């Protein structure tokens, strides 16, 4: 499945990432992709697709193809289409709302049941800025959420989309956890390879996670 690796040459890997959870997740993404925060922007309607490239180390570039899904109930039936071949998922919840964690948990269950078995899942608590300002605003304790994440073998981050705190770091950690060696291909051979990866229909990998 993987091309031979030459560590001397620049390495390029491409991954599919899906954002799920509370409807404000889009903001996390915009912080990551555009390094901007828009207070006025409401959640996504439908889903937004975008790409972002990060430099992991001096010769490794990781390109994320990101699906930003609207966290709404009525789009739930479309969700499988977005996470079907995803390599990683960012499940976002609101640190100031306990029920958003419950929602996140149900997404995680669904991912573990339906998505690729080797999907890297990161449970991400948003609105760190609010919590840091006033610890009383926190409804989800870090210990509790972290324990849950550890138990299921998930990554865990607390971030602020508003200030950008920890966002870059979390994406980097995700990238580090991804099987870059497997997916990497030399830059020149990139084009054909990428097209394959981005197709949602190529069920070349694990079809069933059970």
């Amino acid at each position, binding site marked *: 499945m993987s091309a031979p690796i030459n560590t001397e040459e620049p390495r390029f890997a491409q991954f599919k990432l899906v954002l799920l959870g509370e409807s404000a997740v889009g903001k996390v993404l915009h912080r990551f992709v555009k390094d901007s925060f828009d207070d006025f922007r409401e959640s996504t309607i*439908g889903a937004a697709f975008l790409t972002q490239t990060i430099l992991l180390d001096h010769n490794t570039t990781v390109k994320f193809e990101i699906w930003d899904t609207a966290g709404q109930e009525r789009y739930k039936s479309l969700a499988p289409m977005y996470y079907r071949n995803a390599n990683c998922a960012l499940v976002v919840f609101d640190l100031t709302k306990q029920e958003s964690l419950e929602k996140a948990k149900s997404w995680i269950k669904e991912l573990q049941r339906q998505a690729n078995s080797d999907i890297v899942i990161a449970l991400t608590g948003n609105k760190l800025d609010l919590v840091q300002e006033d610890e009383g605003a926190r409804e989800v304790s870090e210990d509790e959420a972290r324990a849950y994440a550890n138990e299921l073998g998930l990554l865990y981050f607390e971030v602020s989309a508003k200030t950008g705190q920890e966002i870059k770091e979390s994406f980097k950690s995700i990238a580090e956890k991804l099987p870059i060696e497997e997916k990497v291909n030399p830059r020149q051979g990139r084009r054909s390879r990428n097209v394959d990866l981005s197709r949602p229909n190529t069920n070349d990998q694990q079809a069933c996670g059970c």
Partner: protein
Amino acid sequence: MESISGRSISSSPITIHESYIPEPNDSGILEETGRDRAKEPLAPPLLKRKSIVSMSENSLLLSDLQASVPTTAVTLENVDQEEASGPEEETFEQGIATALRHSRLSPSIRSTRSSIVPTLTIFSDEEDDVNEGDDYDEQEEEEDGSSQRRTFGRLLGNLLSTDDRNSLSNSLRNSVHSGIDENTEGISLVQKLNFGYEMESTDDNEDMTEFFSRRKHFFILSSAGKPIYSMHGSDEILTVFSGVIQTIVSFFQYKFDGTTESLKSFESGKVKFVFLNRYPIILMATSSYNESTIEISQQLEFLYNFLLTTLSKPHIDKMFQKRENFDLRKLLGRADIACMDSICKDLANFHNPGLIIGGLECLRLRKTIRNKIEKRLLMNKSENLLYGLLVAPGGRLITVLRPRKHTLHTSDLQLLFSLIFNTNTFKTYNNTDSQTSGSEENSAADEEFWVPLCLPKFNPNGFLYCFIQFLDLKSKELVERHGINPDDSTPSGDGTKLSLILISAYKDSFFEMREVGKNVFRNLCGNRPIYRELYRSIIGTQGADGSTGLPYGAVSPADIPAPLIKHFIYKSKKHTQFLFSRIHGSTQETMEDPKTRSQIMLLYSKMHSLVNTNNSTGGGINTSLQKQDENFEVTQLSANLTSSNFIYYINWKVGVPREDGQISTDTIVGFVIVTPAYEVYMITNGGVVDKQILVNSCKSIVRWCKRNEDRLFVSGGAVF
């Protein structure tokens, strides 16, 4: 259209809220829309009124939605339509029209037929296309054959000199002949468009006084009385009023003999209450803008269709079948609420000319360029692509890619555009071009959207999937590549973005559409004539010295030239598209100023409601009445040739705040000409109006628009 309660509200046990309906009096609360009008002394005999009303309803764009959605009582309108389809001997009366009887007869019937199917002609079946086209060609010949035009010219002249003979109100005579107080002369229309209009906004305020002070309200609730949405007020207020509205609606719904009917509207003082009952959803609006019931119903219909767009009819039905008192808010996300907010704001502030005039706005482009664009769309079409739309900022259509057999309805496009262009979901925020840090993927930061939508007119039962992508025409790369010098005075941000909407019936065809989109944009940007024309039309004309002029896309009355006319809207009924001019002598900022736009559109809305409630009899010059509105005094004159050819002349006296803090009275004159082929709405400055110049200007506009039809409107599109 009017389904009416036969009962009087005087026996109604309901009291809504004491301060909301001040002192309900026995006679005037429940307006039985049609019949009430018949009581007015000016109204013509019932038969004639009926046919005229129905004729004008037929020319309404959204009104037929009501007929097509099966609901309770539509009997009245069926009767009307049957009548309307026959030749209307009744409306042909003596006077100016007599000589025109024969030539007028057929166009009026045609107008009925063509407007019953208010599909954009370009989207309708090819066969229809041909027929319609033929019809209109004939008509044009008729008109070009000068008889009609000459008649209109004469009629206009007559209309304006009527006040010589009739003893009209002084204000009108003043405005037409002797002008107004000297000291207000020279005030531009832009300055006059400042008659104290307060912009409406949405809120979730708990304050009841605040709530009751609003001039416009929209409510959506379920038939079980569960709140869904309100434009103003907190959840608590909405909950209370949902119960009240549901009670009122159901009180009038069931008659003793077991039949049902729908409460349509009633009035209390200056406030009009309009209902739309679409089981399992009830919508209600209140307005104190003196809008007609038909207009408010259309607005409600639009809002209802938006609900269908996001949720689809079967989905809504299923939820309510399961549980009568289902809370629909569970299905609506923040983005949907924000969308409804922006639609309500648009409706309350008269911001969307398309919804008022009925039709789509189009981007003015050279015909060859439009054809080239269409060719490139066709070239890149893929298997699962159903429709493609290329749209300029502000929802101005550039062209459309469509299959021969399928049609897209104007109101569906209006919904789609208001979703894309009026909500912030698709808007750009701080455009950071420093972003991409030299990576190959320059478009890395550009989002592409995949939005499931139900287009109710296309198919209320299923979803289509829209791929939406934007292209910034002013991006550094493009501007440099095509040698353009953008300067700071030109629009920026979302005002320079081309949008491409690719619609597919398959939910997993995103990547296929994405490929199409990529190729289309590459093709468009790679072609210098296309790019430069789009730039010229959307952003600004590029002078030889590198300076940028006003965008070619916006026509000024001075371009025609049409002296005296300060602003106009020309609607081609054949295309269901309209041209919205810029205000004479205005800058880009003025045109973009929401308040100016609101005030000018308020005037157009008033003109349009005259057209649609045209209740005078055919033949000759008639009706001059004075109405006292909150903002201004209205004097109007109308002349009908037949029910489908008429002219309105409206004189508004407005109070304009002046620099010294005083308020001076000023006039604005509105002018409407309606024929089966087109509608022209014009605004002039008031003051001294030379009849002949005005008449000539009107003629010039009509002639100019007809001559430039290929540039102004999309006809045909790219058909595959």
